[in-house]
């Protein structure tokens, strides 16, 4: 079938025949207990190539790059660097051989300057002054502007990523690994990053680019290797594939499409936020500044924005984990609730799904029935005169399991034993089964497999159709475009006026995410930049 076509594809083997790849893995296997995180993976990385590594969460992408970067030792198989077998003792050996890596989660010290952070990541053979000069030179050459004297906590996420990239480039790597670099960037920042990557490629370097954003991969990458369940599924030219065909290879089947019910009616305002301002509770936190919006029943409002712009603080203020002095700043079902605890807000009909599944949304080492009780004790008939109705908590588990297809090994396992997607389905299900009037949900499908993500998005749409007001915070613009009626953007603790989803183009949202306003003059300026 299609396999033949791919085997003949010039970019994978034909073009490079006779040369040695920069990096090659043969039968690379990593075993954790009985679990094969990587199962005999063969991958070739050539110079002057941007190679995408695609796969769902848990497909083995991180394990593979950690092995290549020397962070973990493979259980079996070989890594060849320029044709020679190598056993990397650790990341410093990988770096000295010319392999660099930019992690998704930055390792930066907030209270140190840019230059100090870079110095800490280098071998320290040159003086701080020479290093600073080189830092400025590298950042200028590649169009990655950085002020070496600024302290990291003052910088945006995009700027922090630049530090990581510059730090990696200062070691002049021939091979650079980037782990989901655009997850934290605005569309415009992502475009700028792509220019840098193209340039690195033109210089003859190889890049391994981990992502699950398929359009991006089609645009940027020359080759794509798809992993699924720890195995390599395919190596192909992403430009010859469609986003749908790539997704099929990642998931191993069709993904259910999420459908909104036609003619959804909006009703009365069920969640109103009036001029909410709140000082941060911790150092370097974000101050919420005059946030106002109104959310009607039957409506889904999306909140976009780069992480760390006040989304966590807004969630805490809306849920009641942090209280506001002025009761009128948050109105739930027509009642001033700013001063009410999370339990009292739940009694008013609000429900909440936080971003962190383990440790915030659930107690990891407690059973699902106990985790049903965690948020259900207030208003779900699970407690009578202070005594727990165990049958009622188990019933919630069973109903969530059935309604949202939660897969688990036994009836009532510990939360931590479920996969991310199944646990998220349980958490969302637990809240939706309470028939909330208002649902506030943060990053509903973060790190969740495509099948579970579709189930969750459909559940949110159905809840809105049933008349609830739903507030979704997400960094995934595609997700918001799929389910939200209106989208607002958070930046530095401010919330923009919501745009109707139809009008919220990537460009407009990107500008708002970068802190520009949509007034004509400034918008024109930003687009020109």
């Amino acid at each position: 079938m299609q396999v033949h076509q791919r085997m003949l594809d010039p970019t994978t083997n034909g073009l490079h025949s006779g040369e040695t790849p920069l990096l090659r893995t043969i039968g690379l296997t990593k075993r954790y207990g009985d679990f094969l995180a990587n199962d005999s993976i063969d991958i070739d990385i050539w110079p002057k190539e941007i190679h995408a590594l695609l796969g769902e969460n848990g497909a083995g992408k991180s394990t593979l790059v950690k092995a290549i970067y020397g962070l973990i030792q493979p259980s079996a198989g070989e890594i060849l660097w320029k044709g020679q077998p190598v056993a990397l003792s650790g990341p410093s050996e990988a770096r000295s051989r010319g392999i660099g890596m930019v992690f998704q989660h930055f390792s930066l010290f907030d209270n140190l300057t840019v230059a100090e952070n870079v110095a800490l990541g280098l071998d320290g053979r040159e003086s701080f002054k020479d290093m600073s000069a080189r830092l400025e030179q590298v950042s200028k050459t590649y169009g990655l502007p950085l002020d070496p004297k600024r302290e990291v906590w003052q910088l945006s996420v995009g700027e922090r990523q630049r530090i990581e990239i510059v730090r990696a480039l200062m070691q002049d790597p021939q091979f650079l690994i980037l782990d989901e670099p655009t997850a934290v960037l605005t569309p415009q920042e992502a475009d700028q990053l792509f220019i840098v990557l193209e340039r690195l490629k033109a210089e003859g370097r190889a890049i391994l680019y981990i992502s699950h954003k398929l359009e991006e991969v089609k645009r940027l990458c020359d080759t794509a290797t798809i992993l699924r369940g720890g195995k390599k599924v395919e190596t192909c030219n992403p430009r010859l594939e469609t986003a749908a065909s790539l997704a099929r290879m990642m998931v191993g089947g069709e993904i259910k499409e999420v459908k909104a019910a036609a003619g959804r009616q909006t009703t009365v305002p069920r969640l109103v936020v009036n001029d909410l301002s709140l000082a941060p509770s911790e150092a370097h936190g974000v101050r919420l500044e005059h946030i106002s919006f109104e959310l009607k029943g039957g409506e889904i409002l999306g909140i976009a924005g780069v992480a760390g712009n006040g989304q966590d603080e807004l969630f805490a203020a809306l849920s009641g984990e942090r209280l506001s002095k002025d009761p009128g700043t948050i109105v739930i079902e027509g009642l001033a609730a700013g001063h009410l605890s999370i339990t009292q807000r739940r009694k008013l009909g609000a429900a909440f799904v936080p971003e962190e599944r383990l440790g915030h949304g659930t107690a990891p080492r407690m059973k699902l029935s106990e985790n049903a009780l965690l948020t259900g004790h207030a208003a779900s008939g699970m407690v009578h005169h202070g005594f727990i109705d165990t049958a009622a908590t188990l019933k919630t588990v069973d109903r969530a399991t059935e309604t949202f297809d939660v897969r688990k090994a036994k009836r009532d396992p510990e939360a931590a034993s479920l996969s991310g997607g199944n646990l998220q389905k349980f958490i969302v299900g637990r809240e939706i089964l309470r028939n909330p009037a208002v649902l506030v949900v943060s990053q509903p499908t973060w790190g969740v497999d495509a099948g579970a993500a579709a189930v969750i998005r459909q559940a949110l749409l159905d809840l809105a159709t049933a008349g609830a007001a739903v507030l979704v915070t997400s960094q995934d613009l595609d997700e918001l475009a799929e389910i939200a009626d209106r989208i607002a953007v958070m930046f530095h603790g401010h919330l923009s006026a919501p745009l109707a989803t139809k009008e919220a183009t990537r460009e407009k949202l990107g500008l708002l995410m970068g802190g520009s306003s949509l007034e004509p003059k400034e918008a024109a300026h930003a687009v020109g930049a």
Partner: protein
Amino acid sequence: MQLVLEKRAERSNTIALISPLIAIGLTIVTMVILFAILGKNPLLALHAYFIAPLTDGYSLQEIAVKATPLVMIAIGLSLCYLANAWNIGAEGQFLIGAVAGSWVAVKTQGTDAGAWVLPVMLVLAAVAGALYALIPAICKVKFGASEILTSLMLVYVADLFLDYLVRGPWRDPHGFNFPTTAEFDPVATVPLLIEGGRLHLGSIIALLVVAAVAILLGRTIKGFEIRVVGAAPRAARFGGFNSNQLIILTFAVSGALAGLAGIIEVAGPVGHLQPGISPGYGFTAIIVAFLGRLNPLGILIAGLFLALTFIGGEQAQIAMKIPLDVTKVFQGILLFYVLACDSLILYRFKLVFPNRQVARGTG
């Protein structure tokens, strides 16, 4: 080949049950070595420690008497530890409870006060223990002071306060200058269960406490709150539970139980207030709490076991001249192994064989 600790997907309930037994086994092996180094016959020593006390009725009663304060204190401590509140000062709360209850006994001495004396002593001791425990709890909640340090330091305050009372204002004028109060009146004494025996009403109270806390933890929302706050603080806050309130509550309850244990010990087996009423019950109860897996039934069993070591230690001292301090060494080693074995609940040992290199051409 190499031995590694590997994380389990889910906590092992089997290991959770047998880990205290493994710990006891390892402790006994260590003790055998220790006895051998001391030049004593290990088998005879073990017999004196663990078998001899179980063979006569008097010792059996004595084990229950010793277990009573241990279990009561450990039950209270388990609530604190489940809620991530580290009360190390139960010894002090025990002594303050003993002092507060004794105040009634001393003041009514020789009067015709009626049957109300003992109940008032018990209540007052519990209240005093709770208030004394609230000092570190409030310092923790209001000022962020480490409750581990403050509760521990207050032990010495209580100890010296008791010492002052029995050497000064409360000293028995007919007591040949010994630092002790007069023997309590019968109305101020905890009644015996068996005439002429040692077993007293306090053991029944301890059993009631075990049952009540078992219900609290297993069946009520308050018990759930205590467990969640300790196991996942952020999830607990998301659940609407206030950890500061629970620190106050668990400290107060554990202080009350320790205070109650204190007065029961003084008004029961001891019969008067004097220094040294506790051979370190408040500290040994920490071991009991962990050995019993912070579970009420487990604590009951662990309390009886630790009481056995106290009695066995005395017998070993008499029969084999093994120093009484060896009992404390034993208890310390036991706590060490209990905590070490706990890691097996979440982890397991695994033998890992060296990498098999795949022999393939390099192309």
